[in-house]
């Protein structure tokens, strides 16, 4: 079992440029053995480039990349115990599924019977035991992606890099594979670096999440930290849905403060994240934290609003609200059902907001 205290991966001030363009800027990051780290960020922010630096396809222009304590900045990819699931699958088109999965083992000169067994196991893990003799072009996108996954895990590398490994799967299959991956990672004690653009996936699976923007790490923390305590407007906005409201601080009162939104609506927030001299703040409110009712609830902030639009989302309804002052919000409520009251467009409702559910993400 690997030692979970020891860092398995370390980036020390890594910068990577492509010509004039800086894809990764001064990234420092430590991933512990057995940890599940997710890189999350918009397209083109440098996630794949970070993985490539780890896998050895790129050399850093500045800084060091350490694997298991050893500087590998100039070690070629085939000498690193790191395997990758490629964003584009990168299956060898001339090899069957079995041959694809067995490639890494062949390169390690694993004896045939053992290899055979491991391939079988890996294919079973991704539910493709039956398809071992197909060629990649005979499979659907989702199946291919699973082959790519099996090909990487069969090598049992110390570090597994997964570049959007589930993006081609429909929600059903995706959920199944998420659980499977997580189980695998725990069982083998592997270190995972995972890239996704699906935030729910990130929140569900990761030990820690790094929010990347323009080649920089914007925030690093576990799922609840990232979700409940975004540090920057970008992080707040990028993860989940957020109502981002800019406000003026008009009153400080012990551990609380009152802020006024542009429309005039006043809200009470906690002072924890408010530096002393700040006069302006950006407040983030998660839609599901806004409690909707026909009657006002007991909370620091209560105000009335009208439902402008109701959008059915399956398990939840999204409500677009406008307060009497003119501030627009959106909120989530459980969908209409036997036990749940229904709200409709045009209804006037009470919104209640708990003090701790208003998060300050930026001050001035």
């Amino acid at each position, binding site marked *: 079992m690997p030692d979970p205290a020891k860092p398995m991966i370390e980036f020390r001030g890594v910068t990577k440029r492509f010509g004039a363009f800086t894809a990764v800027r001064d990234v420092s990051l430590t991933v512990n053995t057995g940890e599940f780290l997710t890189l999350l960020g918009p397209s*083109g922010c440098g996630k794949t480039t970070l993985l*490539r630096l780890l*896998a050895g*396809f*790129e*050399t850093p222009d500045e800084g060091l990349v350490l694997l298991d304590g050893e500087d590998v900045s*100039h070690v*070629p*990819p085939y000498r690193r115990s790191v395997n990758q699931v490629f*964003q584009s699958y990168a299956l060898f088109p001339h090899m069957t599924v079995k041959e694809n999965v067995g490639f890494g083992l062949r390169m390690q000169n694993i004896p045939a019977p053992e290899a055979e067994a491991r391939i079988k196991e890996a294919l079973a893990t991704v539910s493709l035991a039956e398809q071992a003799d197909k060629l990649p072009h005979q499979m659907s996108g989702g199946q291919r992606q699973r082959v790519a996954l099996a090909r990487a895990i069969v090598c049992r590398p110390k570090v597994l890099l997964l570049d959007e490994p589930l993006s081609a799967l429909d929600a059903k299959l995706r959920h199944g594979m998420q659980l499977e991956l997580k189980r695998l990672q725990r069982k083998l004690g592997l270190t995972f670096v995972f890239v996704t653009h699906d935030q729910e996936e990130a929140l569900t699976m990761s030990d820690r999440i790094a929010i990347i923007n323009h080649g920089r790490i914007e925030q690093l923390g576990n799922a609840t930290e990232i979700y409940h305590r975004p540090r920057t407007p970008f992080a707040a906005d990028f993860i989940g849905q957020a109502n981002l409201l800019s406000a003026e601080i008009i009153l400080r009162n012990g551990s609380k403060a009152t802020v006024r939104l542009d429309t005039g609506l006043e809200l009470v927030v906690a002072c924890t994240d408010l530096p002393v001299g700040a006069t302006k703040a950006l407040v983030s409110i998660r839609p599901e934290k806004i409690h909707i009712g026909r009657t006002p609830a007991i909370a620091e902030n209560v105000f009335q609003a009208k439902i402008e639009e109701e959008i059915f989302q399956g398990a939840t309804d999204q409500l677009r609200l406008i307060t009497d002052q003119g501030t627009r919000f959106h909120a989530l409520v459980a969908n209409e059902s036997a036990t749940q009251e229904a709200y409709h467009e045009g209804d006037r409702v009470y919104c209640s907001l708990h003090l701790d559910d208003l998060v300050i993400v930026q001050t001035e």
Partner: protein
Amino acid sequence: MPAPRPLIPSGLTLLNWFLRGWTGLVFAFLYAPIAVLVVFSFNSSRLNIVWESFTFNWYERLLTNAPLIKAAKNSLIVASISTILSVVLGTAGAWLLHRYRFRFSRAIQTLVAIPMVMPEILLGISLLILFVTAGLKLGFTSVIIGHVTFSFPFVLVAVQARLQGLDPALEEAALDLGASPLKAFWLVIVPCLRPAIIAGGLMAFTLSMDELIVTVFVKSAASATLPVKVFDMARVGLNPMLNALSAIFIIATVAFVLFSEYLKKLSR
């Protein structure tokens, strides 16, 4: 969709160096004889054997050698026309064979390969017999027919290789947006095939510029191409005038390339 990542990844430094060095050596190999003939085009000795002294004499004599100039002109005419025809025939053929399932696709495909494998002398003689039988007067037409026959398959093969990687949705998108099949081909497919068309066209041009044996048989005296003239002059040993001619050709080409790239840069 990952960003395009050209080149060998920077993590594979050694491989990078090897490839670069090797390519350099091969280009040295390709250009060694070219360098020699450029140098000897300034050699005062008529025999290409030892360096005597520097002279422009061969260039001067070249410019007054009307038959040679005419042959060069003929060559350019023949190569240009047959390249154009080859590109048209080869590209259209490749597209149609790729795009549609014709009944005799495979047979046609094999037929296309025959001129590539046919020894030139056989092609030359049999075409000559055909032309003489059919009463076609030998001249530019017969030469161009000969050249197109063996060079369009090269274009076809090059374009076909490229087509295999082309997203069929591109054509569909064009049709979907209201383009007729012909317009879709011209406005969308042809531009997408450009690299292959250029490579194929280059091969066709090169083959035509360098073709001797077929031409010897199907040319008339007035349509003799440069290789025919060069062969007449050079099969008894190298003539520095020919060196001069080659040097001019190569320098003109390189200059042309640099110039057109410069123009491209300007227009951007």
